[in-house]
């Protein structure tokens, strides 16, 4: 039995997962043809992401290294972003069992009335899977990996509960919760920062928001432009000749455009499972008291989230340069950096000033954690065949406190950071829980984005 399992794992994700999906498709009575198609298409996704990640690491990696050497900068390990990290999670030894485990945790919590979230967002189970995969890679234990999936999923469903009122009142999405491994984990920090800012005279009245940022600067948020600009800047700083700088710019643009194009095939392969899971959950759990757990993509069209996403593309790079000893070069997550601050926008009621402050803290902590995860992240990337050489990391999920705290608790390597990040996060979560119990997370009547269509106007003093 173990020999068979080892043989299958050795085939690599591009072969093993198609087999698994094919069998699951048959079990779900999808028919041979459809199951076969789903299986092969997920393999296509893995082959595709492998190509794109090598395009990224083979070209940006050396350039970042040269830049780091010339300016003594750090920033030599490329962030592959969630489009790079998610396939590693699915391809890990935990990958194939994580979906049923996360659903089972959800079902048990619903049965015992420990959550109101019915999570139908199967794709984002990759976050929970990633925690499990990282824990398993660090400890060498499959079962501790499963424990990681269980802890992450139980925790994120609770956060989904706590922030559902914000999703409803600020974003106008009634009956919906966003139990998400990057958008929602960062929200407790925003709750604490919001409460602190409320106590500072003067500062507490500063409020601006903008719908003009997108009209004026929307183009810099476009993935093609982000890719090209970063390629240009890094190629230039690496001291490359002009012809190579231009090459790098177009290559990085290509990475940005191609990443989702290939990763979506993995989602396509998962569709039969996602459908079946949703049907099962729909049938068993219906009622007015429940929230449907969905993807934070729902929040990304909100004008203040769009504005924050644009601001945080350059701001995240500035933070990366400022953090002492930082090795992580933000890249793959920049195109969707809005995920990190999407819930914070709601907590701050669309106040861009506060979102910039809490977002800066969130990104600094994320980058700090991503640094400490480089070793184990790289090991996972090699085990899953995503890279053959070099080092990688990611902001989303490599920079997640949940994965970091669990990994360190089970496999201690960074004691002081564990104490600092662990206590900061624990405090924020407890504080958020207290605010939730007092109905204070989204308290007074909010200024909605529709009413606040003026640009950078300070209200108050």
């Amino acid at each position, binding site marked *: 039995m173990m020999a068979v399992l080892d043989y299958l794992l050795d085939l690599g994700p591009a072969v093993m997962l198609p087999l698994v999906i094919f069998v699951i498709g048959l079990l779900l009575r999808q028919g041979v043809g459809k199951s076969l198609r789903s299986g092969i298409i997920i393999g296509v996704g893995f082959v595709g992401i492998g190509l794109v990640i090598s395009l990224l690491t083979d070209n940006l990696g050396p350039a970042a290294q040269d830049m780091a050497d010339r300016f003594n900068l750090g920033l030599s390990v490329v962030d592959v972003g969630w489009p790079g990290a998610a396939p590693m999670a699915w391809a890990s030894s935990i990958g194939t069992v994580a979906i049923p485990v996360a659903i089972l945790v959800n079902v048990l919590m619903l049965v015992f009335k420990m959550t109101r979230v019915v999570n139908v967002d199967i*794709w984002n189970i990759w976050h929970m899977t990633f925690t499990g995969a990282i824990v398993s890679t660090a400890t060498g234990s499959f079962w501790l990996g499963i424990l990681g999936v269980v802890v992450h999923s139980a925790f994120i469903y609770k956060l989904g509960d706590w922030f559902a009122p914000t999703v409803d009142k600020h974003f*106008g999405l009634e009956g919906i919760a966003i139990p998400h491994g990057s958008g929602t984990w960062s929200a407790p920090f925003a709750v604490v920062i919001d409460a602190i800012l409320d106590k500072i005279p003067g500062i507490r009245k500063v409020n601006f928001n903008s719908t003009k940022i997108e009209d004026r600067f929307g183009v810099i948020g476009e*993935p093609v432009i982000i890719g090209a600009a970063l390629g240009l800047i890094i190629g230039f700083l690496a001291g490359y000749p002009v012809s190579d700088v231009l090459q790098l710019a177009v290559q990085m643009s290509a990475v940005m455009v191609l990443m989702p194009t290939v990763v979506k095939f993995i989602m396509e392969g998962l569709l039969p499972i*996602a459908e079946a899971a949703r049907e099962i959950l729909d049938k068993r759990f219906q009622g007015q008291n429940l929230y449907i757990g969905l*993807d934070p*993509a729902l929040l990304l*069209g909100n004008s203040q989230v769009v504005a924050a996403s644009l601001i945080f593309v350059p701001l995240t790079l500035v933070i990366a340069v400022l953090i002492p000893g930082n090795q992580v070069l933000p890249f793959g997550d920049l195109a*969707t950096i809005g995920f990190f601050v999407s819930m914070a926008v709601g907590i701050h009621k669309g106040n861009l000033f506060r979102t910039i402050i809490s977002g800066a803290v969130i990104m600094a902590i994320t980058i700090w954690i991503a640094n400490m995860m480089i070793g184990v992240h790289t090991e996972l990337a090699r085990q899953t065949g995503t890279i053959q050489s070099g080092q990688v990391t990611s902001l989303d999920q490599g920079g997640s406190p949940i994965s970091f705290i669990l990994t360190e608790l089970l496999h201690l390597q960074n004691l002081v950071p564990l104490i600092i990040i662990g206590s900061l996060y624990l405090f924020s979560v407890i504080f958020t829980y207290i605010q939730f119990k007092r109905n204070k997370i989204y308290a007074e009547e909010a200024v909605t984005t529709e009413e606040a269509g003026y640009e950078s106007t300070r209200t108050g003093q």
Partner: protein
Amino acid sequence: MKKVLVACGGAVATSTVAANKIRELLKEKNIPADVSQCRVSELGSKAAGADLIVTTAKVDRDYGVPVIHGVAFISGVGVEKTKQQILDVLN
């Protein structure tokens, strides 16, 4: 040939679900269409030339093209209504 853009945050997860459902719907109703996916941040430059935009995100911006909120394809609540809205725009 109608052109439909399906957008979500990262053009990977929810837009894939919605795009698949829309392709099935249009095939069933014999409406020839090119259904493609993109990120919400790309809509500004891609909207021109599209007949319809379906987003799983709730977008506040006006793109000069009809926009339908397609969250129903993800949540499963109100799918028929959303399908009808899409057919109304494309017919």
